[in-house]
């Protein structure tokens, strides 16, 4: 696990992952970014320690301050979530202010995980931080927009989940039909670590 520090740490972690996937060094099985960290997995038949110096040299030389593949997205949201009212009450503000604060930032996709295509978005206003629900719901539909702790995100598949639901979007985060030939497999996913997202109320 590599930890990036200093300026633009999250951007560099995401950019490193993309660079590694575009031109994988020998024996790398996968590279997964999350916030300021990057997990690099090696084929363990080879002793991974011997590859680390080369990996570090490569990272020093690559220009990781800018992720050329990073894209910006505008996500329309209908702010009608089941938990919206109680969430606003919990943080002591009216629903309209809550919605305004949720739309205000430009979020960064810190990582994709939990389920295929599910983005964890960093940049949520601290006044909207709400802990996960005590009892998770057995089924949350795809497209549900939620808040869990200091993060906001969008459910990409119907799954159980414990985040506070504040709205829904019709935008599809994961769609296998999008990667039918001749599209690339990556086309199945709308978002990638390093992308930016802005929510807009419908």
């Amino acid at each position, binding site marked *: 696990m590599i930890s990036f520090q200093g300026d633009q740490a999250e951007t560099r972690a995401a950019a490193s992952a993309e660079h590694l996937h575009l031109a994988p060094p020998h024996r790398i099985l996968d590279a997964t970014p999350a916030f300021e960290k990057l997990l690099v997995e090696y084929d363990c038949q080879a002793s991974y320690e011997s590859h680390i110096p080369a990996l570090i040299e490569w990272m020093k030389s690559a220009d990781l301050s800018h992720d050329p593949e990073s894209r910006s997205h505008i996500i329309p949201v209908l702010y009608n979530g089941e938990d919206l009212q109680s969430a606003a009450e919990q943080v002591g503000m009216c629903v309209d202010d809550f919605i305004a604060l949720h739309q205000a930032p430009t979020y960064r996709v810190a990582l994709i995980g*939990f389920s295929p295509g599910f983005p964890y978005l960093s940049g949520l206003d601290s006044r909207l931080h709400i802990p996960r629900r005590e009892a998770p719901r057995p089924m949350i539909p795809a497209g549900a927009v939620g808040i869990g702790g200091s993060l906001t995100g969008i459910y990409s598949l119907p799954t159980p989940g414990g985040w506070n639901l504040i709205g829904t979007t019709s935008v599809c985060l994961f769609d296998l039909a999008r990667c039918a030939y001749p599209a690339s497999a990556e086309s199945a996913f709308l978002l990638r670590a390093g992308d930016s997202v802005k929510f807009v109320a419908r």
Partner: protein
Amino acid sequence: MGVTIQDLGRRGWKRYGIPPGGAMDRHSLQVANRLVGNEASAPALEWMMHGGKVRLLRDARIAVAGGGSIASQLTAWRSEHLAADTIIELRPSPFGLWSYLAIEGGIAEPALFGSASAYPRAGMGRILSSGDVLFSDSRVSTQLHSDWPGGRLAARGDQRCFAELPALGMWPGPQRDWFPAAAWITLLDAKWTISPRSDRTGFRLAGSQIPAAGREMLSEPVLTGSIQIPPGGEPIVTMRDGPTVGGYPKIAIVDDESLDWLAQAAPGVCFRFKAL
């Protein structure tokens, strides 16, 4: 859970939240494949401690390896040349959980993200049901076998019995230091079993309690085999279809080869860990 098509899984897609997947017991899948002359990674059927029947629509060389089921018509760990219309019946057995039925040529199944392994919760592949017809893919076979005199038997060292498990190797996890020394000792001393709330995404361990680390963390990527300790104290081992990121402290990581054994821990079968 039911019968699905599995191969050795997909690599290189965790950054999109796609778990590696693939056979829960990679060893047994590979043995079954080699017994019928397939590449080790060819798609095969994975049965989870199930009953069920398969009818061959043509002559074929077949092998079953693993645990959890006993097949009629076949001895486990050995391939046989069976005639069309043969019905292979699988009955549950008390030891092991996952059986692999390999057919010469492998099962023809479209690959998604580099693998034919089913991951139905994301719409990739499906749980098979009665009436499904499967085809084998002759391009996958490594050699022609029409003149084999009989069945091939797996090497003794490759045959596994799951009535008892060897000690499972584990490495210290990335948050090992967040836990008191007593927690690590409990992990190594306890006799564990898997709890009923276990599946292809994760095995929950019963038998002892590991005190929570008392610190929270941001979600980070998780290796298959990671042992996470949630606030409840019941350890969860991330298995092949497990989430690619997690926010619970990881005290240890089960070695990949030991994971093949752990996957075959039937309810009630005890096992222990050893530090690597």
